[in-house]
């Protein structure tokens, strides 16, 4: 059983706030613990901002998923931006090209259960994260 996909186009700072609110609402309805809710919302906030700042805007899709044993939430962040040239470097703590803390991408990976990134220079970036209920 898969629930309908909620989709938000990210093109302004306000949209990042909307993504955060949507993810929180769905996380609450999926009965994630308060800590997991906060972790997922924070990860979504980081990745949505990356989509906006580095990807030049894109879309965020949030779905409830069920693997038979556990329920979870899957979020896909996709943009048509320049892509990431050196993924290992981008996932290094403290590395940034934009004046931030350089913890967004690597930190978001630690905040979720599954983290999958597809990127190629000039092809855009697509990041899929999943958080399972405990």
């Amino acid at each position, binding site marked *: 059983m898969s629930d309908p996909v909620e989709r938000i186009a990210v093109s302004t*700072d306000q949209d990042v706030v909307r993504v*955060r609110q949507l993810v*929180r609402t769905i996380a609450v309805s999926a009965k994630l613990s308060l800590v997991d809710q*906060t972790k997922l919302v*924070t990860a979504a906030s980081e990745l949505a*901002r990356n989509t906006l700042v580095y990807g030049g805007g894109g879309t965020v899709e949030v779905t409830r998923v069920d693997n038979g044993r556990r329920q979870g939430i899957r979020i896909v962040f996709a943009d048509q931006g320049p892509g990431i040239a050196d993924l290992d470097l981008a996932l290094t703590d403290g590395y940034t090209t934009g004046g931030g803390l350089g913890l967004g991408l690597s*930190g978001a990976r630690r905040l979720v259960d599954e983290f999958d990134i597809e990127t190629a220079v000039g092809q855009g970036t697509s990041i899929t994260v999943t958080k399972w209920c405990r």
Partner: protein
Amino acid sequence: MALEPDEASRLAALLEDKQEELVGAWTDRVAQSLRGRLSRAELQRQTTELRKGFQSALAGGATDLTQEAAAELRAQLSDLSTGRARQGFSATETAVSLFALKEALLGVLDGGDAGNLREYVAFSEFVDAAALFTFDTYVHVRESLIADQAEQLLELSTPVVKLWDGVVAVPLVGTLDSARAQVVMERLLQTLVDTGSPYAIIDITGVPAVDTQVAQHILKTVVAARLMGADCIISGIRPQIAQTIVALGIEFGDIATKASLADALRYALNKTRTRES
């Protein structure tokens, strides 16, 4: 199909001749669509004014709402729409008030020859343009209301309070974006100067999620306060926020952090005491 100048003057004459009947029927229909939320006397006044506006625009030779002769009518329409928007009516309800004129006019048109029909359709187009104009004005008014409120919210949500002699606090509530972070920093630094306080507490109890951007804004504020000789304490770090900050890998370094505002105040007071003794 636009109005022809001779049609406009004939319509102006019709609006003049049948004014009582027209205003009556028009007011009835508007009253019906608004279901008693505006008094009949008020509506009657509005429709009477608008009828005059339409009549003088048409008599002045306006065949299109954008023309100079219709300037007065446009001003009336935008007043009406502004008023309705502020009173909380929907844009549709405002536009329907104008569409009602078409029905009212149909009631006073006599006979049914082809000339009349052509005139009616052309006039109807004129009224549609007027209704669309109120729609635009409505959206514009609402947008400026929202912009005003956003600005007020920015002002409201960033107070800097004096907790004790030498201790000021900033309770942060909601989303901390770049614009708000800037306001918070400016207020805090100014208050530090005004009160000469050596301690500032930044309370994040009301911030639902601390991501790297929020953390960076807080860190910058702390560094700026330090440059001015004040020590900052971050309070209101709840368990879920603490775990998230650790997982993200954010380090607050040697900045004092406390779980509650009370703890932070106690800490600041202890420090003040050791400093004095």
